[in-house]
């Protein structure tokens, strides 16, 4: 069992995710749980400064948007009403994020493989204007199927973009269908700055995000899809499934251990 900063808080946030998914009959609970610790650390320490959003984060894994909104809600950047209205008709918070800096969303995502090259463009712009901003991209491991990852690795490599951190949520969700195998080995030619961490250990996440070197930083965060709930962890049907009743919400919530 991992000793994280505030386990009780994260358990409560996961329960709120389940409830919001029930209310909206939308959202990707399992993927959100997979990246929740990473998002927790990003929001707490890396993408907000003095409560102000730095416009430096791209959720390339757009389907885990609910996880991002939940952490924003947990940290009081968005209120309960807006959070619980998730994916409703006139909500600013969609099933996939829609660019809206008022709600801390730098880029619209949802179709996989867009976030990293967009962030590379932002990082490049900051290089030429000599600004010191650092950019964070969170993508899924199966998103690595998209050719744009490899195209953008070439770009980052060639242009020495070291003001960008690529976090890959390695939850092995579709490893049997199209194997990525030894991901670190595949990424190694593009960066000498790769960290393989436990993506649910917040100390490790924070430490790896803090490290700095001359290369593009890549963090391979080993995670469990649906992390925290045994029911959601063991059945991939929860990829895009929601509790159908309040009772089911409660049952699912009770299964959350961490």
């Amino acid at each position, binding site marked *: 069992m991992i000793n994280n900063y505030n386990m009780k808080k994260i358990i409560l946030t996961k329960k709120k995710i389940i409830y919001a998914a029930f209310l909206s009959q939308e959202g990707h609970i399992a993927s959100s749980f997979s990246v929740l610790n990473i998002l927790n650390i990003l929001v707490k320490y890396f993408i907000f400064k003095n409560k102000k959003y730095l416009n430096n984060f791209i959720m390339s894994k757009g389907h885990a948007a609910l996880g991002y909104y939940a952490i924003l809600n947990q940290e009081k950047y968005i209120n309960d009403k807006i959070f619980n209205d998730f994916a409703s008709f006139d909500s600013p918070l969609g099933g996939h994020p829609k660019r809206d800096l008022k709600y801390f969303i730098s880029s619209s995502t949802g179709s996989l493989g*867009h976030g990293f090259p967009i962030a590379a463009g932002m990082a490049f712009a900051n290089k030429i204007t000599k600004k010191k901003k650092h950019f964070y991209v969170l993508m899924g491991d199966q998103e690595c199927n998209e*050719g744009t990852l490899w195209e953008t690795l070439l770009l980052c490599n060639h242009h020495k973009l070291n003001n960008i951190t690529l976090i890959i949520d390695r939850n092995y969700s579709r490893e049997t269908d199209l194997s990525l195998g030894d991901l670190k080995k595949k990424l190694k030619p593009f960066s000498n700055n790769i960290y393989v961490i436990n993506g649910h250990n917040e100390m490790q996440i924070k430490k790896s995000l803090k490290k700095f070197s001359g290369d593009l930083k890549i963090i391979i965060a080993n995670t469990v899809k649906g992390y925290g709930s045994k029911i959601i962890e063991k059945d991939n049907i929860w990829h895009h499934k929601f509790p159908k009743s309040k009772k089911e919400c409660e049952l699912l919530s009770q299964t959350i251990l961490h």
Partner: protein
Amino acid sequence: MRTVFPKFILNQIKKDKKIFVLLGDIGVHSFKDVFEKYKKNILNVGILEQSMISFASGLAMENRIPFVHTIAPFIVNRAFEQIKIDLCYQNLNVNLVTVGGSLDYAALGSTHHCPEDIGILSKLPNIKIYCPGNQIELTKLLDYYKLPGPKYFRLSNYTHNLSINTSNNGTLIKKGKKGLIIVIGPALRFIERYYEDLDVNIFYINVVKPLNNEMLSKYYHKNIIILQDFYNNSISGEIVSAFKNKDFRLCEIGLPNKFFLNYGDSNLHYNSLKLSSQAVKKKIYNFLNSY
């Protein structure tokens, strides 16, 4: 037009350092001067069109004004989703400038043709589409690069020689009684030698999107011809919506919806497709006289 674009960039960068040119490994030589004088404002990105469009959107988010330049099909077709989501959905100021739209690269085969660009791009919300008819019009249209939202500039090897005081809403270049011809950009070359003899209203547009339907509706006629240098039916839906609830006959003169499997000079293609100046004249008279 291909020489006008790099010249425009060279002049404009002097005044506007926000400009950033991205080349998809095309036209690198013609931007030699820009590379020499303003190397911080230009990049030959490489042959990765999808990432290039997303990258451009990232530049725009951080307050740069990107111009992306390559051969039409390589971004319009290959990076269509990036254009849709990264540029149009987010409504970012990115300027796409392409060459080879229709048959300019006739001898290189269908992989290098893109007669569908206007048709498919015009279905995307937020984009502005410009089809300049010659170098002067191109220079004038490129001045819109600061306008918000994505823009598509379609550069062609073919131009017309008329000097038109163009307006964004379209320009009536000839008055007449027997019909309305809507001519788009370089397609004006087909009729430039005899257009004054035609007893029709000729309405010239080089801004394909947004179309000013209100303006267009003023020139309603029961005989309508659309003359274009891309696939027929590309924007007829948008045009005829200006004339809703009215009866009219429509004749489209442009490229037929097929792959052009021959090679050779593009003029040979236009001739074989009956899109020479004389053949177009015949089509116009046949249509106007067949009623």
